[in-house]
Structures are given as C-alpha cells and as structure tokens.
C-alpha cells in the first residue's frame, strides 16, 4: 500500500494468491514447523524409552534393570519438559503467524475499501462487505493456523511411520498402502463437494449479516409501522437457509472421516492376512509383525485427521475466494498512471469548468450534457426539481461519479488527471444527508482538517466554523460542549443540528472550493439569513457551489443554474432569470411572494 494516496490502476497491482500472503510470515512458520519436528521426535523417543525400560525389567537382573529404569525415567522427564517448551513454541509460532497474516489482510482489505467508489457501495450491501472482513477472514486464518499445523504434523507422522514400516518390510508396506489410492480419489471428489458447501455457507453468512444490519439500521421505521412480524419472518427464512446449508456441510464432511478411517482399517486387514501368511511361511517373525502393526496404527490418526483438515482447507479457500473478490474489485474511479505527483501550486481558489457532462446509470441519463463555467472565486447556485441531477452534478465535480476525461476542469486541469487525494483535498463538501461519526462534536467538525495543526489551532478553527454554521448556541447547551460524544454511542442530534455540524465540517476544512448541498434546509428563514450573512465573507473570493431550494440562499449567487431532467434549462443571475420569466421565476413565485409580503 503506497503512502502517497495514489490509486493504482488494475494492471499495476500484483495478483494475490493464498500462497503469496504467507510470505511475510514464512520465517515464523518455518520456525514453528521445526519445533513440530522436535515435538514429534520426542513423541517417538518417549515411548521408545518406556519400551526399553519395560524390556529391561523383564529380561535383566533386577538391580541392573533398576539402574536403566531410573536413567530412562529421568530422561523421559527431561524430554517431557523440553517437549512442552518446543510444543508451546510451535503452536505460538504458527498460530501467531496466522493471526499476523489475518491482521495484514484485514488492514489491506480496509485500505482497499476506502478506495472503492460510491457505485460499489450502492451495489454491495454493508452486511456482506463486513462479513468478508470478519467471517471470511476467520476461515482463511483457520486455514493458516490449525490447518497448516495439522497438515505439517500429519505429513511428519506419515513420513516417519512410512520410514519405519519400509524398514521393517517393504513388501508388506506396499500391501498396506493398497487402499490409499482410493483415499486420494475420495479426497478429490469430497473436496469439491465440501468446497461448494463451504462457499454456500460463507455466502449465506454474508446474506444474514446484510439482513441483520438492515433490521437494525431501520429499526425506527420498523417500530413506527409495526413491521416486526414481517421482518422476523424474513429473518427466519434467511436463518433457515443458513441452517440448511450448515447441515449439508455436516453431512458431506461427516461422511468423509469414517470413510478414510475405514480405508486405513482395510490396510490393517491386508497386513494381517498377507503378513500372517508370511509368518506362517517362515519369511517373517511374529515379533516383526507385531511391531509392523504397531507402526501401522500410527498411520490411523493422521488418516482420520485428514478428513478434518480437508474441511478446514475447503472452508478456508471458500473464505479466501470471497476475500479475493473484494480485493480484485478495482475502484472504477482511480488515478491514472502519471497522476502520481500532485501538481500543487495553482490558483488559491480555482475556477470550475464543466463541458458536456453526461452521466448515465440504470438505463437513465442522470445528466445529459451539462455545461457551465464558474470563474475563480465566484459562487454558483444550482436549483431544480427533485431528481433533476443536482447532487449528481456535484458528485461529478468531486469525482464520486466516473466521468469522461475533459468533462470537468478545475483551475484549467482535467480532474481525471488530478490525484484524487489532491482533488478532494481542494473541496469542502457538506452533503445532503449529514452523516456524522461516533465521535465528539469537535472531532466531527475537525474531520476534514488535513493540515497538521496543534490542538489550540485546531480548536480555534472548529469553534469559528461552528459559529459560522450557527451551531455555537446548540453546543453551549450540550452536556460536554464540543467534547460531547454524538452518533451511535452518544447523543442523538436533531436533523437540523446534524446538518449544521456537516456544514461546519466543510467550513473547518478551509477548502479552496466549497460545495454545500442543501445545507440550510432545516433552519428557519431568520437563522438561514444569519448563517448566510456569516457565510458571505467565507464565500467571498472562494469558488463555491450551493444547492438549495431557498431563494434567499440562491439569489446572491454570481450565477444560477437551473437543472431540469439532467439538462441546463436556464442560467444567469437572479435578476436576469426573474426577468426572463422561465422555470426559475415560476418555481420561486411563491417564495418570492412571501418575501415581498414581509
């Protein structure tokens, strides 16, 4: 992730594979595996020492045997302690490595999310996106942690047991391994089924998260309209689907494990039958056969564990597939190569020029060839009916909507060639729906301040912005003033208060361009006038765009744009538009009449 904030186009980003994510933690993983080797070595040594002592007790003279026994007992104790240490180490190394990888992936995922455009978020439910960063990442991590540990362990045990078996009797070993090719086939077939079932579950987890998120976010409407019953019914359906998919996985996975173990058992039978004949024919001793069987038993646990490992593996890859989908989604709004270096400098407050801007979505033309020129330092007001494209136009200037190159120029520069971070740093934006974060009032207002300021300077800016936005009296009565926590975990502000915090936020950023989208709709005419008066010096000499339905806010603008159905219907000054008697005049007839009466 590069720090200049430049967003790279698709070709430049390396493709992520499951294996490549392991690389940074390879050292730890190797260390853990080495410890595992040690652990297994001790696991073999201890029973061997035990066997040695028992044999000594059986065959040797008591006093001699006692000496061996004591020596072996001490050795076992020593080994046990050592084994505990390196076993702990192995688990810590491997599991910590897994968690580190999980941390890194999650960090990268969030970074990636911050670069995805609004169109992505419109298409993808919040709950499902969250699920990818939590549930799916958890499945991936289980693959790296317990999954990897058991794969390695299993491989070790297999290798060791095979070595011992081959040492005893290569011919019998081959016979004992006869069922194993069948095992491999079973693994392949079952893996596919388990993967499909796992993917279905991960998908449904995402769906469930989405449903829950919506129920919680819309709880006010649900209560008002007594929708609890229907929402519960809908949830039950989603929940039951999840149950079905879980049960499917249980069935598929559950059938696997005994199958594997049975195959191993058949191996034992073969050994018994073939080995028995070998012994009877005198080609092998009973003792060897017993020993052979003992080692064969060693194979049974890993074979059984194989089924479990496959489960974790498939669930992990299913989760990874979903994580990859997210990572592979490229932001449709990105910096072009060569945007890397912010040009900087330029006019203190730039001009805005829009030429033939067309934006289409869902088969409709939201903007159909809009053009205008806003000189530096001037104020543009945009008015128009609901849905005529005002906010879309503003989104285009912010490049929250993808636009054709050359359609929008700021300070003469094509905005598709301005690094996004620089472009948006230029603009202070107060959106229509005033979204606030769970933070203090001060932090919310200061959100847009990117310049490094010391606390005093920051607080001063916050205060001045709040005053300009007409927020100061409200803050004065909050329990902790500017330090009052608002949002999800704090106080719920009224709609009008939220709107003015959003306005203050835009002002506090001290941007070169100010865009206010319907920022004064929740205040009365008088307060609106007061705020507009305070805004006047701020707007003077700063390129600004105002969207409003209120004549008072709009009439002093240098230029007024009337949008209708995505096109510019009229444009001009307030006086000129009134005189021309068109849409603007009729739209504001009543408001103007009201003003005239008072």
């Amino acid at each position: 992730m590069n720090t200049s904030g430049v967003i790279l186009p698709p070709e430049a980003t390396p493709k992520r594979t499951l294996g490549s994510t392991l690389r940074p933690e390879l050292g730890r993983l190797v260390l853990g595996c080495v410890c595992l080797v040690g652990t297994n070595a001790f696991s073999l040594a201890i029973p061997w020492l035990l066997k040695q002592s028992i044999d000594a007790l059986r065959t040797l003279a008591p006093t001699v045997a006692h000496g061996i026994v004591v020596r072996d007992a001490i050795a076992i104790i020593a080994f046990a302690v050592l084994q505990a240490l390196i076993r702990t180490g192995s688990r810590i190394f491997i599991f910590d490595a897994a968690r580190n990888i999980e941390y890194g992936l999650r960090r990268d995922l969030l970074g990636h999310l911050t670069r995805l455009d609004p169109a992505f978020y419109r298409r993808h439910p919040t709950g499902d996106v969250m699920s990818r960063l939590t549930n799916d990442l958890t499945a991936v991590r289980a693959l790296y942690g317990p999954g990897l540990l058991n794969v390695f362990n299993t491989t070790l045990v297999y290798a060791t047991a095979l070595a011992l078996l081959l040492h005893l009797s290569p011919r019998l070993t081959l016979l004992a391994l006869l069922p194993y090719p069948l095992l491999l086939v079973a693994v392949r077939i079952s893996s596919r089924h388990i993967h499909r079932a796992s993917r279905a579950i991960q998908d449904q987890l995402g769906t469930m998260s989405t449903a829950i998120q919506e129920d919680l976010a819309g709880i006010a409407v649900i209560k008002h309209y007594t929708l609890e019953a229907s929402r519960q019914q809908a949830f039950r359906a989603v929940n039951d689907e999840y149950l079905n998919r879980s049960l499917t996985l249980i069935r598929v996975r559950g059938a696997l494990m005994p199958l594997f173990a049975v195959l191993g058992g058949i191996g034992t039978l073969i050994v018994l039958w073939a080995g028995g004949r070998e012994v009877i024919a005198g080609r092998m001793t009973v003792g060897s056969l017993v020993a052979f069987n003992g080692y064969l038993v060693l194979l049974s646990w890993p074979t059984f564990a194989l089924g479990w490992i496959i489960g974790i593996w498939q669930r992990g890859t299913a989760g990874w597939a979903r994580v990859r989908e997210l990572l592979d989604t490229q932001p449709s709004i990105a910096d072009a190569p060569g945007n890397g270096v912010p040009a900087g400098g330029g006019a203190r407050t730039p001009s805005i020029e829009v030429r033939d801007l067309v934006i289409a979505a869902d088969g409709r033309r939201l903007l159909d060839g809009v053009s205008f020129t806003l000189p530096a330092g001037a104020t543009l007001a945009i008015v128009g009916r609901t849905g005529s494209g005002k906010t879309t136009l503003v989104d285009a200037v912010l490049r929250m909507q993808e636009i054709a190159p050359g359609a929008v120029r700021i300070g003469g520069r094509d905005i598709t060639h301005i690094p996004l971070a620089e472009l948006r740093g230029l603009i202070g934006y107060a959106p229509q729906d005033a979204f606030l974060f769970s933070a203090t009032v001060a932090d919310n207002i200061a959100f847009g301040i990117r310049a490094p300021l010391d606390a005093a300077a920051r607080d001063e800016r916050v205060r001045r912005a709040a005053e300009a936005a007409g927020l100061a009296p409200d803050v004065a009565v909050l329990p902790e003033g500017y330090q009052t926590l608002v949002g999800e975990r704090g106080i719920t502000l009224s709609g009008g208060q939220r709107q003015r915090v959003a306005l203050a936020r835009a002002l506090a950023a001290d941007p070169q361009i100010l865009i206010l989208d319907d920022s004064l709709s929740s205040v009365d005419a008088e307060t609106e006038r007061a705020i507009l008066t305070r805004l006047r010096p701020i707007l003077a000499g700063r390129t600004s765009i105002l969207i409003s339905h209120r004549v008072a806010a709009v009439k002093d603008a240098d230029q007024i744009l009337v949008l209708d159905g995505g096109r510019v219907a009229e444009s001009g000054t307030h006086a000129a538009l009134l005189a021309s008697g068109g849409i603007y005049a009729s739209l504001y007839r009543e408001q103007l009449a009201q003003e005239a009466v008072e």
Partner: protein
Amino acid sequence: MASEDLLGNALDRTLLRRIFACVWPYRGRLLIAAALLPIVAVLEGVQPALLKRAIDDHIAVGRLAGLDRVGVLYLLALVGQLAAGFAQLYFTQVVGQLGMNDLRVRVHRHVMSLAASFFDRTPVGRLMTRLTNDIESLSEMFASGIVSLLGDAIRLVVILFWMFAIDWRLAVFSLVSAPVLFAIAAFFRGWVRDAFRDIRVRLARMNAFLQEHISGMKVVQAFAREDKVAGDFDVINVEYRKANSRAIAADAALYSIVEAIASIAIASLLWYGGGRIVAGTLTFGAVVAFIEYLTKFFTPIRDLSTKYTVMQQAMAAAERVFTLLDTVEPDAPASAPPLPLAGEGRGEGKPLSGAVRSGEASPLIDIRGVSFAYRPEQPVLSDVSLSIARGETVAIVGATGAGKSTLIKLLPRLYDVKAGEIRIDGVDIRSIETRALRRRIVAVSQDVFMFAGTLRDNIGLHDAAIDDDRILAAARRVGADRVIASRPEGLGARVLERGANFSAGERQLVAFARALARDPEILILDEATASVDPETERVIERGIAELMRGRTSIVIAHRLSTVRRASRIVVIHHGRIAEQGTHDTLLAHDGIYARLYRLQMLGHGAPRPSGLDAAE
C-alpha cells in the same frame, strides 16, 4: 462503552445450563449421541483384543483356519466403531446447528422488542456481532463434539476403577498428578477466559467501526481522509490481534503442560514401580498393566484439555449473547394504567384493539400533564397538556429543541412519559396494545429509511391489505408518482441498500406515499422535510392538505402555509405550551408567536434560544 467492557460474571455452570436449554428441544438426538458413546468405546476396545487373538491364536501358531473370520470380525468392529463415532459426531453437530438456529431467532426477536432508547446508545455493529459472530462461536462448541466430553468422563472413571482394583498404592501414587492438573486448569482458566472475553469485545468494536465507516465512506472520501480512517482502524485491528495472541499463548501453554504432566506421571510411575519390583513387592505384569492404564488415563485428559479452550471460547461468546438476551428494556412495556382523573370514567384498564369509536364528541388525543426527559438532568417537556379533537389539524411551532419532535415520539410510545398521561379515545395509551396503537398512528419523520427491495415494498411495506392500486393512489396524492414513473420498472424498481439509488427528495416522497398508503387515523408530520424543490413542495402540500382534511393531524410546522391552514396552533417554548390559538388570535395576542412570525422564524424550523438540550 462501560457496559460492554464489563466482565460478565456469569458462572460457567449457569451458562452451560442455558446453552443446553437451547438444545433441549433436540435432546432426542443428543441422547442418541450419548448412547452411542459406550458402543464406540466397546467396539474400540475389542479391536486390539481381536488383533491379539489373530496374532497369538493363529499367526503365531501357524493356524490359518479361522484367521479370515477374525479378520472379518475386526473389520466389522472397526466399521461399527467408526459408524457409531460418525453418527455421534453428526448428531452432536446437527443438534448444535439446530439449537443455534433457534437462539439466533430468539435473540433477533428480543432485540427487535427493545426500546428506542436502547438503540440510541448501542452501535449497530456491536449488535451484529452478537447475532452473527458470537453465536457462530457458540456453535463451534458443538461442532467439536462436546458430547464426547461425557465419554471422556466415563472412560476416566472406568480406568480409575481398574487402577484401584489392581494396586491401590500404585493408584494413589499415579494420581499425585491429579491435584497438579486441577491447579493448572484453575490457573489457566482465568487467563484463557479473560483473553477470550477480550476477543469478543474487540471483535464487536471492529464490527461497529466497519459498519459505521462503510456507511459513511462517501464522507471519508469526500474529505480525502482515507489514511486517517485506515489509521483508526489499525488501532482496533492491532488490539484484536493482540487479544488473540494472548489466547493462543494461554492455550498452547495449557495443552503442552498437560502433555508434559502425562509423560512425567508415567515416568514417575516407572521409577516407583521399578523400585518396588526390585524390592519384590510388586509383579512385573502389574507394573506393565498400570503403565498401560495410566497412558489410557491421560488420553481423555488430553482430549479434555483441548476441548477446554473451545469451551472457554464458547463461554465468552455465550456471556455476550445471554447478556443481550437478558437486557430488559422493553419497547412500550405494558403497565398498569394510572387511575382515572376525577370526573372521568371512560374505558380504563382494558386493552383496546384500537377500534375507532365513531360519534364521540370527546377529544381523540388527550395529553395531560406530560413531562419527559431523555436524560434526567435535561428535561425536554414539562407539564404539557393538550387536547386534540377528532379531525383537528394542530400545528406545533416553537424553537427546535423545545420538545416538538419529542412530543411526537411519545404518541406512538417510542418513549414513555415520565409523568402525566396520554389518552386516545379516553384510553391511556399504555393500556392499548402497542401494535394496535401504532397502526392507528403514522408518523413521517425527518430521517427517511428505505429498505432494500422494490418501490412497491417500500410503499406498501408487504402489507397484504395495501395493493398496487392503493399504492399508486397514495403516491399520486403526494407527487411520488413521478418517482415511480421515472423508473422503467415502475413499482417494481429495485431499491438498493438505504435507497442509495434515489435522491434525497425522491426518498422523502416515497416516505410520504408510505404514510398515506396506510391511511391512518392519526397523522403526525415532522415537516422538516424541506429537501424538495418548491414545485414538489406544492404538490406535497396539496396532497397533505387533502389528506389532513377530516383526519386528525399533528404537524410540526415549518412552513407558514401549513401553520396558517391549521385549525389550531400550539406554541411550545422551553418544553411548555406557551400559547394556543389560531393564526389571527395569536397575532392579536402579540406574544411569542407574533414575535416569531414577525421575525420570520416560522418557515423552515425555528431558531434555538439558549437553555435547550440537544436531543429533540
């Protein structure tokens, strides 16, 4: 948040009991799983014996005849053991999923029944964690075959019995390790449990952060603060990783120490037993048998220690889930109705279905002496009394924060009055069944929420009684038909999450249509809905005026035209009713209203005088 970070102090026993209460309806399957345990154990135990027989009685003595039969018996025992083992695990897992399925529905239903005040202070992401991640964690407990713990316990008892049967002194010596094991378990319990609790808390925080910032990503990007958000998230991400590291270390140490103790115990037994063999007080065979038993003893112990961490993890999750389930903050709780005031005598104490009584001349809505505060130290409404007759349109004006929106939330009992009462048709609203009450009242507020789905669903709200004709009629009256017409699929137009593919104004029109489609008895309108152009506003006004005709309405007025059209204007000032009357009488009165009017403080909301709280 304090309540979230507080350590749950529920005992493991209680938690286990409640968890098993969740699966109790499926106890049949659990019993089968438990019953299969001894079968598995027996079949498992018989295999080495069969093997021994095959070797001793056939192979060693060269008798091939009958070897095949022993082989078949062995295979049958193996297959049987595995089948039973599979069935046992299968049933346990199925029971777990079924139980958790039920639990999830229960928690969802409980959460939806909680009061608005609960949602005011609880982040959505945290609640999502409870319903998804935490319950998933619980089901892990069943997935790992918790029932086999029972088998482990039984096996332990049987082995102990045999050990004591052979030589009690050896048995006692062998069991010296037991208190050590207990001490270690106790020590680790605290460590492990705290680590897992921590993990749950930080996971909830992570979800809350994600939910919030995904919702507000547009703001983040508009101010180019992606790096700041990434940095803030990193803090939470790191904390989560650290909490997991602690759990990993604790779990690894516990598992390794138990293994070490097993080996050490066996070594000690060897030492002691060997000494006694040399001294001649013990046979060789007894020692060998004992060593074998001790080895077998530690197998279930080992299994227990592995499952221990899984259990602790489940307990930590269970704590969170059950704490939520135990949250008592009911939405509009049923309460004993207050005694009727002197001189009254109508319909108290009986839950009403909400039927409208026609021909009543008495007030429909009767607000008496109502006081309310969100926070005790900041009163919002003080001793408000207001009577609204059927069919009246009352406009409420006053400084925002004066309590107008709060009054409106009290009517459908989103919040309950702290003092006084509200009656509808003479019945205290606390006696009316909440659902019935809310069906009679429709409130259109400032925040418009649209559900993912279709336009039809958002206006008709899946109500069977509201068909397309009714939806279209309602839409036409408020000008929302334009929104429908602008989409090629019309009513079937897809609505994305939160209505993101509709403009703010369009969402408002849909909200109006939604309210009107309900055709409520009482309409409450919070008119701070000014994000529409003047022409649309006129259409809405016409529609609302038409709708309000003959219908009881309360409007928090922001438009002068609405105020003037109301049959009565109520002025709220500092949480009290200051004046009441018609536009003309109030102007003549020359009080607060007159001043507001002259200073043009009536259109678009009102100014905020000092001394008001923040929450409306």
